[in-house]
């Protein structure tokens, strides 16, 4: 398998008959350093577009409750506008993956979005996850980890998901007056999942003190992120042996200082390096590969591009192809990319089609859209994805892909090469040749182990 084929399949969103894969690791790193074309071509709504809908939702709820005329209709209208915005986010995400020349950036965005998982708890922030990824994750995938950590930790969608926006220092002015208090959720997950990792040395006391330090992080519909000193627990907090705040009025800078320190910790470097290697290369990655990535992280103050460079420069990153399974969204995107599904078709997908041909299949493949099982995100192991019911759905979806492709299917043998590269196996070519129809031939390629692995 050529480097270019492997680069597209292992580190990108797959091969395409119309878009050339990156030539080598250098091309991938250069593309990442360049402009984000896919984002410019397929935009996603920002918080600025979500806030008015949230305000209208509240107003419509009041109107409905007061049994005002048209209140129910107004509520229905705004909730459907919010859901449409979520679907627009899905469409953009899919189109980027299908049409990009910089697939590594898409895959990195998905990886880090999963690392800093969020989920909408109700209709209010239904369009929130895509916005969060766009604002807090995507701009930083080629930058410094510390910047991404800060952006993710204070984004309103994260503050809501892990309950930080209601956590109030028990001894703060607001806490004393309202008898409200602490919520440890974000503090724990930052240490356990986002930075140090659960195996690192931290204690319940670190979690509690860190939770106290994080008090004051919140947001308003008018201003977005906001730090409220009146919510902040007074006094200094000790996190991982270091003292933060306490000398002057509480400020978000104390929190940012702690986040920066935690981002710099060797445990964080090792945790992130291993997680990247597990995601891109193997469920049980080469220790030398992980060590090289950890060293790059430490040597370059968490500059992620240097970590990726170290990964791509290591021979183990290119060995053992097919060790991982494509996750369901990736599988669907790679299928359409291999088919060369047109931009026009994807842009014209109707709501019902998205539900029938994408959302429902995603759920049955085990990856309901934007609904990860918990703050630790989606599983990595191939056997978590290739289960009997999930594989059954991949097969069934593959056999009916024409409805989503919306155009005549390609000749199956040519398609096998387009989807898997010139080195496609003889067994697969033989199977495709024996298929009874174009539809079945294309379906067999998409349902094959080779296409579902990377």
């Amino acid at each position: 398998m050529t480097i270019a084929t492997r680069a597209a399949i292992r580190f990108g969103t797959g091969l395409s008959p119309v878009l050339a894969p990156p030539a080598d690791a250098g091309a991938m790193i250069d593309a990442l350093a360049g402009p984000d074309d896919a984002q410019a071509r397929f935009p996603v709504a920002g918080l600025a577009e979500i806030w008015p809908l949230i305000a209208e939702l509240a107003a419509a709820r009041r109107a409905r409750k007061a049994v005002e005329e048209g209140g129910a209709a107004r509520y229905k209208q705004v909730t459907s506008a919010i859901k449409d915005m979520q679907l627009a986010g899905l469409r953009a995400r899919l189109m980027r993956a299908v049409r990009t020349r910089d697939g590594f950036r898409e895959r990195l965005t998905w990886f880090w979005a999963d690392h800093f998982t969020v989920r909408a708890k109700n209709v209010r922030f239904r369009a929130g996850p895509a916005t969060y990824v766009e604002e807090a994750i995507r701009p930083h995938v080629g930058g410094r980890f510390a910047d991404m950590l800060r952006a993710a930790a204070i984004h309103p969608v994260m503050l809501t998901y892990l309950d930080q926006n209601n956590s109030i220092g028990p001894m703060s002015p607001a806490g004393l007056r309202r008898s409200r208090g602490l919520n440890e959720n974000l503090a724990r997950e930052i240490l356990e999942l986002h930075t140090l990792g659960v195996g690192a040395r931290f204690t319940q006391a670190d979690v509690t003190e860190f939770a106290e330090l994080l008090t004051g992080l919140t947001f308003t519909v008018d201003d977005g992120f906001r730090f409220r000193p009146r919510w902040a627990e007074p006094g200094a907090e000790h996190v991982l042996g270091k003292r933060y705040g306490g000398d002057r009025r509480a400020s978000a800078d104390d929190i940012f200082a702690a986040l920066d320190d935690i981002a710099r910790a060797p445990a964080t470097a090792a945790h992130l390096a291993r997680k990247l290697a597990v995601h891109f290369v193997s469920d049980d990655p080469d220790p030398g590969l992980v060590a090289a990535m950890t060293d790059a992280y430490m040597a370059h103050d968490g500059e992620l591009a240097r970590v990726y460079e170290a990964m791509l420069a290591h021979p183990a990153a290119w060995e053992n192809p097919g060790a991982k399974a494509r996750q369901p969204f990736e599988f669907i995107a790679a299928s359409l990319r291999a088919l060369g599904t047109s931009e026009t078709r994807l842009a014209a997908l109707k709501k019902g089609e998205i539900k029938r041909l994408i959302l429902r299949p995603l759920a049955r493949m085990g990856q309901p859209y934007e609904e990860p099982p918990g703050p630790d995100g989606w599983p990595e192991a191939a056997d978590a994805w290739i289960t009997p019911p999930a594989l059954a759905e991949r097969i069934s979806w593959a056999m009916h892909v024409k409805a989503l492709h919306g155009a005549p299917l390609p000749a199956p043998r040519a398609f096998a090469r387009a989807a898997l590269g010139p080195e496609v196996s003889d067994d697969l070519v033989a199977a495709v040749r024996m298929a009874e129809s174009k539809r079945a031939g294309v379906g067999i390629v998409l349902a094959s182990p080779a296409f579902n692995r990377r």
Partner: protein
Amino acid sequence: MPRNTALSRRHFLRTGAALGCSAAAAPLMTRVTFAAVPGDNRLVVIILRGAMDGLDVVRPVGDPAFAALRGADLAGKKPGPDLDGFFALHPALAELMPMWRTGTLGFAHAVATPYRNKRSHFDGQDILEAGSGHDVPDNQMRDGWLNRLIGALPGTTSETAYAIGLDQLKVISGAAPVRQWSPDARVDLDAQSRRLLERLYEGDPLFHAAGNTAFDLADHVPGDDMSGAGKKRGPTPARLAAYAADRLREETRIAAFSINGWDTHRNQRAVLGDQLEALAATLTTLETGLGPEIWAKTTVLAMTEFGRTVRANGTGGTDHGTGGAMLLAGGTVRGGRVFGDWPGLDESALYEGRDLLPTRDVRAFAAWAMRGLYGIDQGLLEGTVFPGLDMGDNPGVLI
């Protein structure tokens, strides 16, 4: 206010698992002989992911410290149906009171796995499902305790055990054969394509195993009506239970599935209420779906990774804790009672000043249930199914 006898196992539970016995030292797995193979009894294990708040589900209203720890903000104004004069049931489980009264529903309280202190959902669930203590390194916990139980049963077939739904279920995964299927799964392809895929999959063990089950089940097991409404989520817990009942009425003896969403850091009153309604529907669906004759032979164990803080947190919820509760149901269960030694909720009785002190290993209840159901040797349970477990006295959870 200790309610029962002296807290004999308190030392163990303060410190986590006894570390002496390791899996490596356990005797080799031996098959056990039964009159009927693999027996007629049914076992359903439900993993409640996210840490169910045992104190809110089975409320120790008789403990003088309870009311002050849990305001109406959390628990609501109604105490819920009385269970035994000391505990009351969460009102959202009121539908299960007929089971309680007929003795087919019980609980074990103040229980925990040997997992302590980090309070991570994911590690907590891994340990719950592996059934191990701390003596087995994390990366060696590849299979689940329910799978090791299946491995110890004689006469199992490919239909004996089912993992139901789309979630990963480590508790039942492992070397012993288990089928995974979901009630809304479909296999939609022509016969020739199927043959071609089967041949392609032969070269890939993972696809071979998954494909075989999928093709086989698509032939033999009726799924739900596929033309149904477009759900973008997976099936509800009650649908999983209905499917489990369908299988358990046939050759299947063991089934597992999970219910997510118990992590109630905020707005616990509403969130937990919804969760418990779904749990109640799950159990009544199982009872109805199995019918009286098979329900009489069934044990349901619903377990969670840990409990939650005894005090409400600052946002109408609770944070990650330690001791929690387990639910037992089915015709084999000696229900109508709350098992376990109640440690009390006085400040001095709490674990690390914040959590319910676990007074017994949750695995002991599961182990005694399996001993009762399948007659499995205690050494096998303590050495292989739950390595390092001291089963202790028989709590008498089964009739």
